[in-house]
C-alpha cells in the first residue's frame, strides 16, 4: 500500500520534470536572449545613450522618466500615430478573420484545380515579405529621384496589369443606392487588396483546421437532417474555434508589426539615433498590444470548445 502511494507521487513528479524538459530549449533561450535584451531595452528607455563610434560601444546616462515625458507630452506625432495604429488593428482583425474563414471553407471543397488555387492564395505570404519588398521599394525610390516622370509613368503602366477600377466604381455609384452604403462598400472594395494580402497565413491555418475535423461529425449531422447553416454553426465553427484564437493572435501581431507606430519607432531609433525615445515607443506600443491580446483572447477562450 505504502509502496503504491510513493510510486504515484513519483509519476506526478516525473511528468512535471518531463514538462520542464520539453520546454527547456525555449526556456533557456527566453532567459538568456529575451529577458536580458528586454532588460537592456527598458534600461535604454530610462537613459540617454551616447554611441562611441570609434570603439563600437556605448555609454548610458540615466535620466529617469525624461524620455517618457518627452514622448507623451512633447513629441509631435507619437500619440496620434499610436491611437490610429491601435484603431486600425481593431478594425482589421474581425474583417480578416472572417474573410479568411470564408475563403478557407471555399478552398476546402473539392473542385478541379484546387491545388493551384491554394498555391495562388499563399502567394501574398511569399510576395509580401523581405527581399522582394526591399527590391521593389529600392527601385521605386530610384524611380522617384532618378529619371523624368515619363519613364516612371511608363514603368508603372507596364508593372500592373490591373484595369481601371474607377470606371466600375462610377458605374456602381450611379445605381442610386444610399450614398453612405455606397461609400462603405467602395471603401471595403478598395481595401480588398490589403485584406487579401494580409490573410494568406490565416487561410492556410483555417484549411488545416477544417481538415482536422472528423468527417463522421458531418455524417451524423447529415443523417440527423441538419441544414448547411446549422452544420456550420454547430460543428464547423466550434471545431475551428481554437484556431480562430491562433488566427486572431496572428492577425493582431501581424498588423502590429506592419503598423505606423513601429515605423515611427524605427525611424526614431535608426535614423535619428534616438535610442531612448525609440525604446519608449516600442515598449509602450508592445504593452498596449499585449493588453489587447490578453483581453481579446481571454474573451474568445471563454467561448472556446476543446475536443477533450
Amino acid at each position, binding site marked *: 500500500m505504502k509502496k503504491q502511494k510513493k510510486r504515484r507521487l513519483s509519476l506526478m513528479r516525473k511528468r512535471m520534470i518531463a514538462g520542464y524538459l520539453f520546454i527547456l530549449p525555449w526556456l533557456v533561450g527566453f532567459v538568456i536572449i529575451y529577458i536580458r535584451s528586454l532588460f537592456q531595452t527598458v534600461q535604454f528607455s530610462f537613459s540617454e545613450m551616447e554611441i562611441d563610434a570609434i570603439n563600437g560601444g556605448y555609454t548610458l546616462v540615466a535620466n529617469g522618466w525624461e524620455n517618457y515625458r518627452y514622448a507623451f507630452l512633447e513629441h509631435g506625432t507619437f500619440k496620434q500615430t499610436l491611437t490610429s495604429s491601435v484603431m486600425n488593428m481593431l478594425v482589421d482583425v474581425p474583417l480578416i478573420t472572417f474573410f479568411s474563414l470564408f475563403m478557407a471553407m471555399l478552398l476546402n471543397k473539392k473542385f478541379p484545380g484546387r491545388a493551384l488555387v491554394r498555391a495562388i492564395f499563399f502567394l501574398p505570404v511569399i510576395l509580401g515579405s523581405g527581399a522582394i519588398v526591399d527590391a521593389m521599394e529600392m527601385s521605386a525610390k530610384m524611380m522617384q529621384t532618378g529619371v523624368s516622370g515619363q519613364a516612371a509613368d511608363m514603368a508603372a503602366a507596364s508593372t500592373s496589369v490591373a484595369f481601371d477600377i474607377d470606371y466600375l466604381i462610377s458605374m456602381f455609384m450611379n445605381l442610386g443606392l444610399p450614398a453612405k452604403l455606397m461609400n462603405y462598400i467602395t471603401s471595403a472594395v478598395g481595401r480588398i487588396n490589403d485584406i487579401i494580402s494580409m490573410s494568406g497565413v490565416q487561410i492556410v491555418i483555417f484549411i488545416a483546421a477544417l481538415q*482536422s475535423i472528423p468527417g463522421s461529425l458531418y455524417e451524423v449531422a447529415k443523417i440527423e437532417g441538419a441544414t448547411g447553416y446549422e452544420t456550420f454553426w454547430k460543428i464547423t465553427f466550434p471545431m475551428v474555434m481554437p484556431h480562430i484564437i491562433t488566427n486572431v493572435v496572428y492577425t493582431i501581431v501581424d498588423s502590429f508589426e506592419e503598423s505606423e507606430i513601429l515605423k515611427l519607432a524605427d525611424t526614431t531609433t535608426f535614423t535619428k539615433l534616438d535610442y531612448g525615445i525609440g525604446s519608449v515607443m516600442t515598449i509602450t506600443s508592445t504593452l498596449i498590444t499585449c493588453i489587447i491580446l490578453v483581453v481579446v483572447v481571454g474573451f474568445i477562450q471563454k467561448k472556446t470548445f476543446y475536443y477533450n
Partner: protein
Amino acid sequence: MRKFDLKKTLKDPYQQMLLMNDIKKFALTILQIAIIVGVSYVILAPVIGMFVNAISSDSDALNPMVFVIPEHPTLEKFKLAMLRMDYWPTITKNILYVLSITLIQVLICSMVGYGFARFDFPFKKLLFGCVVVTIVLPVHTIMLPMYVTFRNFDPAGLATLFTGAKLNLMGTPWPIYILSLLGCGVRSGLYIYIFNQFFRGLPKEIEEAAFVDGAGMWYTYFNIMLKNASPAVITVTVFSLVWQFNDTFYSNLFLVSDEIVISKRVSVLQSVIANEDKIMSLTIQELYLHAGIILVLLPIVLIYLLLQRYFIEGVERSGIVG
C-alpha cells in the same frame, strides 16, 4: 440523369423541389467560381505584371503600344540576372541552409508546444504568457542587445577558455542556428503557439493508450504525437521555409554572407546590373530586377507546391488513426 420534362416537373411538388435544389446549387457554384477567380486575379495581377516584364525585350519596355503580351519575348533577362546573382550555387546553399533551420524549428517548437499542451508544472500559465510576449515583441526592440551578444559570443566563458578570446559570430549563419535551437528564431513563438493549439485539440486517449501499453513519454511524443500532429508539422514547415527564405532582418543584423542568402543578392541586383553591364535606363534595369525576383521566388513556390500534396495526405492520415 433524371429525364427532364417541364410539365411533369411543374406538376409534381417533389420534382419541383429537386429542380429548385439544382438551380440553387448551380447558382452557388457560379458564385463560388466568381469569388475564387476574382480573388485569384487580385493576387496574381502583380505577379503576371512582373513575369511579363521579365520576358519582354528592351524595345517592348519602351514601346507604349505593348500591353501584357510582349512583341519580342526573350529569356535574355533571366540569363543575365542568373549570371549576376550567381544563381545556382547561391540558391543551392540557400535552400540547404533554410531546410536545416526549418528542421530545427519544427523539432524544437513542436517539443515546446507539446510540453505546454500536455504537462502540468508550476508557472505554466506565466511561462506560456511569455511565449505570447515573444510573438508580439517586435524584434527591432531587442536587436541591439542581440547584436552585442553574438558579436562577443562567450557562452559561460567557454569560448575564452578554449580559444582565449570571445568569438565573433558576425558574418556566419551560426547566430541564427543558435537562436533557432533556443526557440528564439524567426517567428519561433508563433510556431510554438500553433503546435500548442494543435496538441491541445488532439484527444488525450491516444496518449493514455500509449502509456497503458508501456510507452515512455519521449517515445509517445516522437512516435505517436508528432505523427498525429502532421497537419501542424506541415503548416509550420511551410511557414518556416517561406519566412526563413524571405528573412532579411536577421540576416542583415548578423551580416550573414550573401553567398548563402540569395535575397540579399536580389536587393542589390539592380545596382549590380547598372554597374557591371552599363545598363543605365531605369525602366530596363527594372526588367532585370523582376526577372531576378521571379528566379528567387521559383524554388520556394515549387517547394510549397510539393508540400501542398503532403499537406492533404498528412491531414488525411491524422485524427485518431495514429
